[in-house]
Structure formats: C-alpha cells, structure tokens
C-alpha cells in the first residue's frame, strides 16, 4: 500500500493524511469503500475538501475524480468550500423548529453578521443547518464543532460565541 506515498499524484495530501487513509483500507473489501473516510480525514486536517485534495484522494483510491465528487457532494458533512474553524450546526427539524430553531439561527447569524454557510470575518465560525440531532427532549439543540449543546437559550448562544 505504501507504494502510493511515492507517487506524485498524491502530492496534494500530507504524509499524515495518506497514512491515515491507507490505514482504512484493511477495514473494507475494496478501496472505493474508503471514499467517505478519506474525505473526512482530509477535512479533519484542513477543515474542508479543496479541488486539489479531491483529485489527490481519487488518485489514492483508484477511482475517477467525478465519482468521488459525486460522493463528496452527496453527504451533508463534507464541505467543498472553506468553513470557519468551528462549524455550528443548528438543528432545524421538527421539534427544534417548534421550540425555536429559527430564533437560534437568527441570533447566531446576527451575532456573527453572516448568512448561513458564510465564514465569519475572523474566520472562526460558519453556521449551517443540520437535520435532527437526536436530542429532541432538549430542543432546541446545536452542535458546536463535535459537541452537542442542548436546551439552547439566548444566553447559551452568547456563551457559545464568547468562547
């Protein structure tokens, strides 16, 4: 497998990224299956998946760039545009909608002076909607980076953005 690290096609990726992606191969029947893991690994290192990285990952997996782009654009959590250091996903599904998701969105966006999907001027945050986060008994909820935050009030929004 390590033969790949020597091919120039993958120069867009760091040795660490290539190593982590190679480590995933043993978990699946073929390389295609690693597509999503590989995109997530790149994103973990860089925050998003650029065109150059997409081409490099496709080369590493021996699949066409078009096929990988089809996968990358299918999934909600793969970003094909730069995002802020912390992505705040606010749940807009039914229970959170009923209990104030729109107010949460409005407050987050107004506070940062951004539209959904935009990066805040300091590069710290991007606000995106997300489907039900599975915490409906504590609606409304948001996910700050990887962390679930429940029972979101106006004060909680302020506290999240102050950190």
């Amino acid at each position: 497998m390590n033969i790949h690290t020597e091919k120039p096609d993958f120069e867009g990726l760091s040795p660490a990224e290539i190593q982590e992606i190679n480590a995933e191969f043993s978990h699946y029947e073929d390389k295609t299956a690693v597509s999503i893991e590989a995109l997530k690994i790149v994103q973990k290192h860089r925050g998003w998946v650029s065109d150059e990285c997409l081409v490099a990952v496709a080369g590493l997996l021996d699949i066409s760039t078009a096929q990988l782009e089809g996968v990358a654009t299918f999934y909600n959590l793969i970003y094909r545009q730069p995002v802020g250091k912390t992505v705040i996903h606010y749940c807009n599904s039914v229970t959170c909608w009923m209990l104030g998701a729109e107010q949460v969105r409005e407050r987050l966006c107004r506070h940062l002076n951004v539209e959904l999907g935009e990066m805040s001027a300091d590069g710290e945050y991007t606000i995106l909607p997300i489907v039900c986060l599975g915490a409906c008994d504590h609606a409304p909820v948001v996910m700050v980076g990887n962390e679930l935050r429940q029972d979101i009030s106006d004060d909680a929004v302020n506290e999240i953005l102050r950190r």
Partner: protein
Amino acid sequence: MEQMAKPLTKNIRPDRAFATLADYESTGGYEGLRKAITQLQPKDVQQWVKDAGLRGRGGAGFSTGLKWSLVPMDAESFQTRYLVVNADEMEPGTFKDRLLLERDPHQLLEGIIIAAYAIQAHVAYIFLRGEYHLAALRLENALLEAGSKGYLGKNILDSGFNLEIILHTSAGRYICGEETALLNALEGKRANPRAKPPFPLVSGLWGKPTVINNVETLCNVPHILHYGIEWYRSLALGADQGTKLFGASGRVKNPGLWELPMGTPIREIIEEYAGGMRDGYKLRGFLPGGASTDFMLPEHLDVVMDFDAIAKAGSRMGTGTLIILDDLTCPVQMVLNLEEFFAQESCGWCTPCRDGLPWTVTLLKDIIAGQGRMEDLDALSGLTRMLGPGNTFCALAPGAMEPLQSALKYFREDFERYITGNNAVMESV
C-alpha cells in the same frame, strides 16, 4: 425487580456517564453471549429470537429471528456473510438509539456478537451517523475493552468463533437509514437505494448475504439469551413482545425517553411520563413514531404502542418517539417543515421523490403565503398518491406523504383558512 422490568436501560443511571465493561458485567453482561456461543447452535439462537417474538425496532417491525433465518447458511458454509448495524438514527423526532449507544455501548456489542454468531458472520459493521461523536468515542473504547476480555476477535470465549467489528461513521444523509442505501454508503458510494429483489439477506454488502439490524433491536438480544424466551414474553402488555424505548418531544411538561412494556397506552406516555401538556397548551395531535408517520388525534390516546394497534388506527409505530402537536402550533407549517426535510434529504434517484417533494413544498409555501387555491389541496392529495407506496424506489417519499395525507384529513380547516384568508388565528404562530 426493576432491573428485570427494564432490561434495555438497567445500566443507564443518572449517577454515571456511561456503563463501563465492569459495570456491564456486574449486571449479567455478556452472559447471554456465553450461553449462546457455548451451549447453542447458530440455528438455535435464530429460533430463540424468533420464538421470543422480537420485532425490529427501526420502524418496520419485521421479526428479527425470521430475518436471520432467511440468510443462506447451508449451501456454502465458507461463504462470507455480513452483519450491519443501522445506527444512522436521523428520523426527525427520534432520540432513542443515541441513549443506548452513548450510555451502554457494551449492550449493543453483545447483541452484535450474538447476532453475528447466529448468522455466522465474521465481520460486522456499525454504521453510525457522523454527528454522533460521543457515541463513536464510547463505542471505540468499548470495542477495545471487549477485545481485551476475549468477547471479540479470534476464538471468542474459546468457542472457535471469530468476529471483527468495524465502526464506520457516516457523513450525514437521512437516506442512509434506508437499508440498501446504507449498503451503498458503506461501499463508499452515493447513498441511492438499490432495487429489491435481490434483498440484502441474499445479496447485500459487496454482493454477500447481509443482515441489517437496528441498534435497539440488537440491544434486546442479549437479554433474550440470558433470561430466556418465557421471561421475555412476560414483559409486554399487548400483542407484541418485550420492552421498548418510548419518548415524547414538543410542548409537554417533561419531554423525555422511557423504557416501557410494548403495548403501553399512548395516554400513559403523554399524560403520566411526559407530564401532560405545558400550561397554556392543549394537545392537538401527535406523530407516534417520527416524521414519517401519520398524525393521530387526542381521540386515539387509548391506542396502545403495538405495531398492529397503531396500524389499525391509521398510522405506524415507527420509532416509538412521539412528536407532540399543540394547539398553538400551526399544523400546516409543521407539515411544511417536515416536507422541507424530506425534499432536502431525497437522494434524487427516482422521479416521483426528486420532483414530487419539492413540488409539495412549493404548494405548501404558496398556501401559507396566502397565494393558495382550493385546487392546491387536490393537487396535494394527488401527490400523496403519486408518491405513495409502489411508485418509488424506496420508502422515503411514501413516508414523507404520511404526515401530509393525515394532516389533509384531520386539519383540513387549517389549510382552507389560509386559502380563504381567514387565518388570523394562525398568523401569531
């Protein structure tokens, strides 16, 4: 006694973040596996689970033991078979599997190992939704713990049975919960559903026989093996067997999740466990088991949480987590929120779903904006038929039509008020 009545949540305690392996073992954990793997043949395990009457907790309610027994076992004993755990909980209003994953991960692992033994699968995948970061950490840790004690890996408990469990975290799409779409996602492709037949039981992951079970379903299995069929069949109140996590969200006093016997009346869940409606709100209706189930009304409160009883009342038990509609929330706007979700999450593979759901959203938005016509209600009814069962590749669009068709039936005056301009009451929402 309490422990025996609530097998699924007995290790989930307010005084600890989650159950470690030691915690899990201290209440009989991995004893079900020990019995299955050292005393029973795989076919016997299938029969136990079938006889216990366990039905899938992901929403469809198919007999779990029957599903296992349909996997080709005898023809080629060396054929690869896979077990896949559907931990892609993303049905709006559903928050049951997250609790089981985060708070008692070993219960799921034991269920997986027993299920894999029953179908003689040597590789199992946990397909976990990407947003469940805490669950992923707890599962990874539990996998290491289980491996170090010989419950996982090679020659499990000296039985000669081998199993590897691989945790796959998804990147977010509701359609991945559809089992054939999930298989495509696991193969690293766009999560479009596959044509059936062939069913995954015969040709699933990489074309091999594959059983796909929900998290909560598998969490029942260790207890059936440990405490027996008779005990399991004594838990429920109605026609179905066992206990289940039931929940309620919305404007109730005490939203939450409770393990209760199957067959528990809906009234008891809403009025006793959820504490009834918040002050100033009245119950207008509810979705019994997630976004893709038909509305039910206060007149249905005495229906019990059993698959067939809910079906008889015109809905589906689905995931068993109730979404409450109060009298100050507009049902038309609620349905718009649901349909926007389904339109966004459609994979776009088949035409009725790809085109029909955005059309549904457009019609609902027009109606709410005061630009609707009475004919639009007929068009919406037409869509509920065109996007209904039999016309689409998978169950996403038919599921999306369930709350719409029942809202048109039960809340028609709310739709009409927007069209006739008499919607003063609802404008405040």
